[in-house]
């Protein structure tokens, strides 16, 4: 019984939250890696692009709520996502036309494009804060829990409860659907294949008649989808605050590089690597050992490897270690 309790404890406090957080990071990391692989620059506006998409989704959610439209037990925001994606695509294409295109055609070095993306970051941040303000916003509605801790305890008779929030399930399900569609698109369709070819070797791809304009446009569209969905999922699960989104850029970068930048599958797994290591290393295992060990050996301290304040620091340290020992990432990406 104690053993089961210990397992449920780990599931509740480590596995489910890490899986959710990892999914959110994974979507962001694929976004970074796609932009890096095809447009060839490190996009420092990542977090703010996500917050822009989320902001549009929130505005639509509010509109739907005001006219009484809802999805029942599901959050209204899911209904708003397609509209937000449309807006986001438009925004991305406008940015590309007025900002990035010039440097791409001039074949500027990646550093210059990265600098330009900092300009985009400032502008996007300003637009988001001017439209919706810098404060914390929750836009979740519908049923909050799929399973409450108490219900689980009654059902199984265990001491430990397993609470599953509906946002966690939504995040994981949406991620699975989104990522598998994306991989199907990249690996099976002709456009997807030409995108990969373009990413792999631009000159050869151009030689074989691939239209770079189309590739770039489709990349921005996919980027818009990923940014919006990733942002909305994070906002539903936690809350929407422009500053937090800006900061989320850092673990997302870490995930993309750990997985091997330019490699979407690596980025996907990188998200989970970062999320699990963050949570595994900062969790206090005292209760777990109380269940597992006999009473005489019960620990006094919290058995916490690092305090939770260092959550971010963990993922960055992993990144530094990976950069040192395997600069191309765990799953071979581009060579640095």
């Amino acid at each position, binding site marked *: 019984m104690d053993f089961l309790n210990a397992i449920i404890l780990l599931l509740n406090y480590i596995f489910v939250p890490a899986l959710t957080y990892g999914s959110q990071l994974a979507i962001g990391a694929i976004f970074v890696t796609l932009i890096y692989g095809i447009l060839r*620059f*490190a996009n*420092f506006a990542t977090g703010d692009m996500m917050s822009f998409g989320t902001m549009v989704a929130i505005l639509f959610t509010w509109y739907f709520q005001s006219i009484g439209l809802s999805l029942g037990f599901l959050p209204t925001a899911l209904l708003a996502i397609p509209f937000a994606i449309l807006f986001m695509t438009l925004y991305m294409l406008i940015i590309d036309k007025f*900002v990035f295109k*010039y440097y791409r055609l001039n074949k500027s*070095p*990646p*550093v*210059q494009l*990265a*600098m*330009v993306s*900092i*300009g*985009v*970051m*400032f*502008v*996007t*941040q*300003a*637009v988001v*804060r*001017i439209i919706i*303000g*810098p404060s914390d916003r929750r836009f979740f509605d519908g049923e909050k829990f799929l399973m409450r801790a108490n219900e689980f305890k009654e059902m199984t008779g265990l001491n430990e409860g397993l609470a599953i929030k509906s946002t966690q399930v939504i995040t994981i399900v949406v991620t699975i659907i989104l990522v598998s569609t994306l991989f199907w698109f990249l690996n099976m369709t002709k456009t997807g294949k030409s995108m990969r070819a373009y990413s792999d070797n631009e000159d050869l791809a151009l030689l074989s008649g691939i239209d770079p304009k189309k590739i770039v446009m489709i990349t921005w569209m996919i980027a818009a989808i990923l940014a919006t969905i990733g942002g909305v999922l994070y906002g539903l699960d936690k809350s929407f605050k422009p500053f937090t989104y*800006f900061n989320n850029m*850092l673990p997302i*970068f*870490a995930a993309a*590089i750990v997985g091997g930048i330019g490699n979407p599958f690596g980025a996907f797994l990188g998200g989970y690597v970062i999320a699990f290591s963050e949570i595994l290393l900062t969790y206090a295992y005292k209760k777990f050992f109380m269940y597992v060990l006999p009473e005489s050996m019960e620990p006094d301290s919290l058995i916490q490897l690092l*305090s939770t*304040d*260092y959550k*971010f*620091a963990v993922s*960055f*340290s992993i*990144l*530094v270690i990976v*950069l*040192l020992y395997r*600069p191309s990432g765990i799953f071979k990406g581009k060579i*640095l």
Partner: protein
Amino acid sequence: MRKNLNVIAAYSIMMGLIILVGIFQSWNIALSIFNLCLISAVMTMGANIQWGYAGLINFGIMGFTALGGLAAVLISVNPVQEAWSVGGTNILLSLFLIIGIVLVVRFVLKKYQKSKIRSYAISTIIISGIIIIRFVSEPGIEAIEEVNPAKTGFLGGIGLPIIFSWIAGAFFAGGLAFVIGKVALGLRADYLAIATLLISEIVIAIIKHEDWLTRGVKNVIGLKRPAPYEVNLQETDWFINLVEKFNSGNLALISDINERQAALNQFVIEGSSIFVKLCYSGLFLVVVIILLILTQKALYSPWGRMMRAIRDNEEAANAMGKNVVKQHLLIFVLGSAIVGIAGAMLVTQDGLFTPGSYRPLRYTFLIWVMVIVGGSGNNFGAILGGFVVWFLWIEAAPIGLYLVNLTTAGLEDTHFLKVHLIESVPYFRFLMMGIGLLLIMRYRPKGILPEKIEIK
């Protein structure tokens, strides 16, 4: 003289703008803008050495600034004797342990060939070392944080005048830069940017949460000052006489003796804070001028030529027998040390150390905007960038308010759009920075004052 006309013109316009602020807003605001402009100028000089001279991207400016600030605390605060007596030994022991681990790892690295066993041995040494250090330091840290947590709760510093921290800050930041450089300088440019950005976040996380060292988010307030205190100035005779002399024209107009005294008091209070700010300006100006002379000399020396050669064509420079790796490391350390000086200056001016206020947007990306806008590779350009961008950063809100009022003049004061826009005026500074950066990068990619290399 003619060649430098645009430099002189740009700086005159900048000073003119600051003087305008002095006339129309207040001299206090103008001077605080000027002081922060000077500090920003030091930071941009540091970043410019790395980016403009050598083409190294350093997005870790925030971390080096914070380390400079930490130096200001550790140098100037008086030691907390009680904390040292309860936890000092543990902390010192941990410090020796860290040094020991580093030495052992170095020894293993030197002595044995690269192999799997060596990597495992090193990771075992490091992990077990960390666990031992935790066991040693934990009781000490807890005891230190128990000591009067509302006021101290940390080890304190060594109680020297705060000016020394400017040098110490340079050493702190330079030391960190040395470690980062050893690890990360081999990376390609944009990876170096990401790596330094993330490492600086780690530095901030440590400064924020190691309360025994820095008091963490509880902040350290009331640091020593290199300048006199306003309260003391207001009671000194020579200062009151000075203010009286300055404002004699205004005072003479007031006939009533009581009113005249009240007016004089007002002038003295205002004058004292201006005087203190002027003291800071003087100190900062000295630093900026010294650094400017040194960096200019370096730029036109054989060493500067070599750096440009490395920047423009690494392989060719390498083929000429220049040690690219070593020079990159050197310039990374030098630039970061300058940023560390700026960090210490900033904390000195504020008189308080707030680890929570270090954010990448303000301390990394804004500095980069300054370098790019001003003109990378040109020290005068970098300093000008610091001035222009900081000036706009502060004055963006009034300008934004003016623009909002202008564009929404037709609307009523209670119209929701107007109210909303006026509320969001502070964020216009982000918009200005972004658009400014994009425009400069597009139409004047070398900055306001571009790099100019004269062959003498």
